[in-house]
């Protein structure tokens, strides 16, 4: 740590240069380890909060749930115990024992029974919503990011050029449209008036979910319009972001030098300008990929789409605590996983972060 001694640094630097590749691997390893530890701690904190929240709520969620369950059908002692394990309540064990049995239950994916879809297990309900949301929002978020960033790079390559003066004001206009309004207009025009796409739902109601061509093609036609609304409204955010970064990066000396080197215009734009300008967008992309699992409440409401967003809505309306608890946990875990993946990707994309983290 002592920065005063200069002489020992010299052989160290020389040694490092000799084994630079293995050193990089070592740094990469330690970065990875640090991140894994960080994300494990964050996951534990999220699970613990999820445990504490219903117990800190005023009133007694456990009793409310049991009352509701008894309205829906007979409640076995097993189920009573499960509700107490997940939500606490007056007649339960000390807090620390509840905590350990809660964690144990999580590891088995046991979240109890959904009240809104009684008596379907919460895990089954969440799993089906998860797939719908991830497919619809995941695919459209990736498309919006890729297309928006590419267009932004083209527009920002020559700030003030013709492409920039067409694309940028247009995307600011689109960006200003309220999502639900744009979505309703699209539904009205393409589903209601023109009848090109189905009005709502995830697939035809008469089809059983499965890996057969009829179901898949129905799911795809149902997803087209909601996906289009998401892509259309979120593309402009990526575009403006990338365009502004690009406009400042093209003035960097290394881009000017790349041009002075007589490299092709494509190479200057991609390997030198866009490669650097995209880095901040990657970080925001991580956040929005994480949020995909939260579902888009608005999209799923407008299109009555069976994803996690509309599940969460139903859970809230029906005071379905088990479903809410599971959804919160799944959403926070997915945000963490997505961020972890993007963090690792970022370290690969920006060599400077390897140095900073070591």
């Amino acid at each position, binding site marked *: 740590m002592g920065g005063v001694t200069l002489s020992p640094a010299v052989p160290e630097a020389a040694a490092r240069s000799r084994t630079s590749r293995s050193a990089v691997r070592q740094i990469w390893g330690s970065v990875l380890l640090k991140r894994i530890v960080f994300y494990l701690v964050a996951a534990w904190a999220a699970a613990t909060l999820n445990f504490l929240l219903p117990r800190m709520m005023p009133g007694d969620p456990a009793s409310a749930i049991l009352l509701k369950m008894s309205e829906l059908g007979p409640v076995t002692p097993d189920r009573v115990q499960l509700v107490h394990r997940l939500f606490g309540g007056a007649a339960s064990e000390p807090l620390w024992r509840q905590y350990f049995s809660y964690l144990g239950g999580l590891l088995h994916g046991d979240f109890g029974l959904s009240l809104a879809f009684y008596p379907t297990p919460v895990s089954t309900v969440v799993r089906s919503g998860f797939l719908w949301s991830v497919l619809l929002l995941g695919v459209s978020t990736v498309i919006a990011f890729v297309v928006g960033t590419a267009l932004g790079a083209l527009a920002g390559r020559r700030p003030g050029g013709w492409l920039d003066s067409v694309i940028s004001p247009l995307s600011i206009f689109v960006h200003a449209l309220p999502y639900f309004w744009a979505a309703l207009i699209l539904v009205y025009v393409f589903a209601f008036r023109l009848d090109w796409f189905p009005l709502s739902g995830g697939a035809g109601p008469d089809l059983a979910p499965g890996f057969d061509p009829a179901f898949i093609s129905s799911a795809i036609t149902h997803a087209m319009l909601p996906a289009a609304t998401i892509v259309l409204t979120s593309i402009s955010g990526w575009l403006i972001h990338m365009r502004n970064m690009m406009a400042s990066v093209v003035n960097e*000396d290394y881009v000017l030098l790349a041009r002075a080197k007589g490299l092709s215009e494509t190479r200057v734009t991609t390997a030198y300008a866009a490669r650097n300008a995209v880095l901040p967008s990657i970080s925001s992309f991580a956040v929005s990929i994480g949020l995909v699992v939260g579902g888009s409440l608005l999209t799923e409401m407008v299109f009555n789409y069976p994803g996690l967003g509309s599940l969460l809505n139903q859970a809230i309306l029906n005071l379905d605590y088990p479903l809410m608890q599971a959804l919160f946990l799944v959403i926070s875990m997915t945000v963490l996983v997505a961020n972890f993946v993007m963090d690792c990707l970022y370290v690969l994309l920006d*060599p400077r972060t390897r140095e900073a983290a070591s």
Partner: protein
Amino acid sequence: MTADLVLDVQGLAVEYGTDRPARAVDDISFRLHRGEILGVAGESGSGKSTLMTAVSRLDRPPARVVSGSVRYHPRDGAPVDLLSAPPGQLRELRWDRLAVVFQSAMTALNPVMRVGAQFVDVLRTHQRMNRKEAWKRAAELLELVGIPGDRARNYPHEFSGGMRQRAAIALALACDPEIIVMDEPTTAVDVVMQRQILAQLQELQARFGFAIVFITHDLALLVELADRIMIMYSGRVVETGTASALYRAPQHPYTLGLRDSSPTLRGPRREVRAIGGSAPDLWDLPAGCAFHPRCPQRTAGCDTTRPPLLVRDGHGTACLLAQPAAARPATTPNGTEEGA
């Protein structure tokens, strides 16, 4: 001498802005010969960097070349005016014949590419090497400037400031160019490193014989490095001549001021003096000689007559004091003569 000419700049003028343009480079002419080091000195805002970007066709809006020519003379074949060359031809000439070294090597290397890869792409473009040969050559080039070849695998942030600067010079040598334009290549490093780099540069220049246009604000440095020096003030050449003559007996009061504003490493001790005032606003240049409001030796006529660059025995001066009284023009001609 004309056989050895490699770059011939005539009447170059560059403006910034469109509504009310500021002329950052005004009617500049110079010739560069093979293996020659031409120094261009001046303070901030004198237009020296604008001149460099215009000559290397790296100017970007709002800069605009309004007149002049930049003729490159290849060893064989007809001269090419870089200002009117089509993009394809220009791209072929870039780096292969004319390379540049930027002021700050800290930002001139792409931070997300390995240093070697930034040699490899240019070698593959101009020398048609395969990937393996190009990496080998990148390592050799780095070793030319005293950087171990295996450091080619490093990223720029793993290099020290001095190493990055030397890497930038090595990069300029990649295609064995005939001209290297250097814009204050040593301002970002300390004095010791500056010495090392310049010594290395002179050695490389003697070995490979490229010509250098060296831009700096440091006149003392140029005197030791350059064959000829051109002094710029608010976009115009105020004095030009051989390095020794210009330093020993400056004709223009501005050159004198510039010389006396920095201490020398060799030679007699003398008092260091600053030039009073600051560089003029390009949008509102003083009438007559642009330097006259700051000039300690100004006389009648300096505020009305803009002195032309008069060249005698290879030494040019744009000052009324340096001109015989009879020859002082009543008007302000724009023509500039430059003897080789």
